């Protein structure tokens, strides 16, 4: 008996009981739709996180000042200004695993242009910053070394700042006031989006480091800096670079064993890896819940197939009398079950995918429907059919033809 014929018989059997076939499939449809939708939402979340990692730049270590004890009062990182431009130079020259580094000083203040104003973050830094963060300009030019050396009063605007101060007008060459000091806008940065912490990275104005130290932060701290961004030579060297920085700064700041260091290093990729892992765990959990509904659906299939075998006992008897072997009967009922689940699987995939698309539209939450998850769902639904169809099919094949023929 050829497979095509078996398929036709199975299709006819499913068509005869359309409503029942549909209701039986419903369990699988819901299960597969849930799996597909969950996977889409889950991998959408992973995608967002990996995008955020990319937006920070890769292989980055953050060196933060602080955690000092002065007069018995302890404060955490950022609590004091303990890092200097000399530290940054030392990190660049003495740590072999470090590719480059950029010091920053941070201040917040009001930016004014004409009758518009916008309160934002003002960041003083060096040109290396934009290499480390892989952040280019979309118009004008970036901050150059000569701007830093000459403490030029120029600035780069983030997208959010540019929009709020200038609207659709071209900001290049215009003069804005930062904390009442006039600066020339030399460029507008590319859009960067949200940071993993949820901050708008585009709501920033960048100025040359020395300009910031002289004009925007308190006058007596012209050599101190806020945080340092360090880029390791490769991902593999990230941990080693962090170690080198730690031992170098311990030495420079005369931190002996047992004493709290006055700086902290943070490996950003590591933080994000943790976030990504938790989102993976989340989608795994959702997948597990969806799989349970698939199993429930499979049991429904088994139940209906058992009913169907009983109902069609006579048909089985006729087929056996006419020359069907046990395997023919087994294959026929297995085909029916697998057809049922695979059909349910396909409908579920379509439903799940469109459901995920709707969710991502309404909640503006990104979803990713991978070919992989569709393939897995498809074959899994087939496997459910094989698994739950086997018992009823074996029962059918095991019938005694004489009894089956006599069955009323």
């Amino acid at each position, binding site marked *: *008996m*050829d497979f095509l*014929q078996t398929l036709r018989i199975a299709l*006819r059997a499913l068509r*005869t009981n359309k409503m029942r076939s549909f209701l039986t499939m419903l369990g699988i449809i819901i299960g597969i739709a849930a799996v597909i939708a969950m996977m889409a939402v889950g991998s959408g979340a992973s995608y967002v996180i990996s995008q955020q990692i990319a937006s920070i730049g890769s292989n980055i270590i953050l060196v933060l000042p602080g955690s000092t004890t002065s007069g018995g009062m302890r404060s955490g990182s950022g609590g004091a200004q303990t890092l200097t431009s000399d530290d940054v130079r030392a990190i660049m020259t003495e740590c072999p695993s470090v590719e480059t580094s950029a010091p920053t000083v941070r201040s917040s203040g009001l930016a004014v242009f004409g009758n518009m104003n916008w309160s934002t973050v003002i960041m003083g830094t060096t040109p290396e910053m934009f290499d480390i963060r892989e952040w280019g300009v979309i118009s004008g030019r970036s901050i150059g070394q000569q701007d830093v050396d000459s403490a030029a009063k120029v600035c780069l605007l983030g997208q959010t700042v540019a929009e709020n101060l200038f609207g659709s007008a071209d900001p290049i060459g215009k003069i804005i006031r930062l904390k009442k000091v006039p600066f020339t806008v030399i460029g507008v940065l590319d859009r960067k989006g949200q940071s993993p912490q949820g901050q708008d990275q585009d709501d920033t104005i960048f100025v040359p480091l020395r300009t910031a130290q002289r004009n925007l932060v308190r006058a007596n701290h012209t050599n101190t800096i806020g945080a340092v961004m360090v880029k390791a030579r490769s991902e593999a060297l990230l941990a080693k670079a962090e170690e080198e920085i730690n031992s170098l700064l311990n030495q420079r700041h005369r931190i002996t064993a047992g004493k709290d260091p006055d700086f902290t290093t943070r490996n950003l990729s590591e933080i994000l890896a943790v976030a990504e892992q938790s989102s993976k765990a989340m989608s795994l959990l959702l997948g597990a819940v969806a799989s349970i509904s698939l199993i429930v659906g499979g049991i429904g299939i088994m139940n209906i197939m058992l009913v169907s075998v009983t109902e069609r006992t*006579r*048909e089985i*008897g*006729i*087929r*056996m*009398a*006419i*020359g*069907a*072997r*046990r*395997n*023919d009967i087994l294959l026929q009922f297995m085909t029916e079950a697998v057809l049922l689940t695979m059909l349910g699987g396909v409908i579920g995939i379509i439903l799940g995918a469109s459901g995920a698309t709707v969710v991502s539209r309404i909640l503006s939450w990104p979803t990713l429907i991978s070919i992989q998850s569709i393939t897995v769902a498809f074959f899994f639904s087939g496997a459910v059919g094989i698994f739950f169809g086997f018992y009823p099919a074996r029962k059918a094949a095991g019938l005694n*033809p*004489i009894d089956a*023929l006599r069955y009323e």
Partner: protein
Amino acid sequence: MSDVISLTDIRRVFIMGDQQFEALKGVSFGVATGEFVAIMGASGSGKSTCMNLLGCLDRPTSGRYLLDALDVGGMNANQLAEIRNRKLGFVFQGFNLLARTPAVENVELPLVYAGFSAKERRVRALAAMEQVGLAGKENNHSSQLSGGQQQRVAIARALVNSPAVILADEPTGNLDSTTSEEIMNLFTTLNKQGITIIMVTHEHDVAAYAGRQITFRDGRIISDSLAGTTGLTDQSV
């Protein structure tokens, strides 16, 4: 002519719990090619058990059964299925057609399991339907056919694989007398074309169509006579 069926000392014992019931107590007979045999007997006489054995749906407890010179006794389930498919054609009391299936596909069914191509199946099925006088009813479902027509479809299905023997189990049991006569005439015609037929019945006028009557009682054959010797000539065709 050689015997197409040969039973030698066939016994069939059913075991129900700790009780044994011997349905056939040593049955021996042969059927020659081209014969039309009626098996008769009251219910419980063993005729149905004998029919199941002849149909290779059941296996004897002891004894020897040769079908078309093949020893069926030692065969496994798959081999028996193949024998049923190739050597036997079944006609049942209740027609036993597949519901919601066109007549021609019912007739094709044995060929499906024999592995014929779709084209060949159709050609043979149409020929068999023509043979039983159902040309033009190919696409009717069983619900659209009368009882007599349904039984003709079943006979066409039994004929389609050119079996060595056609086994008919009370073929007129569900039919009125006029239709019964039609069906029996069809069997007679087929028999005249050389087809061997074995039929179980408990009606004497139906049995009268057969050339030979074997009567069972209590698991044994009590008479085996050729037509004309049992005084049924007044009801002949």
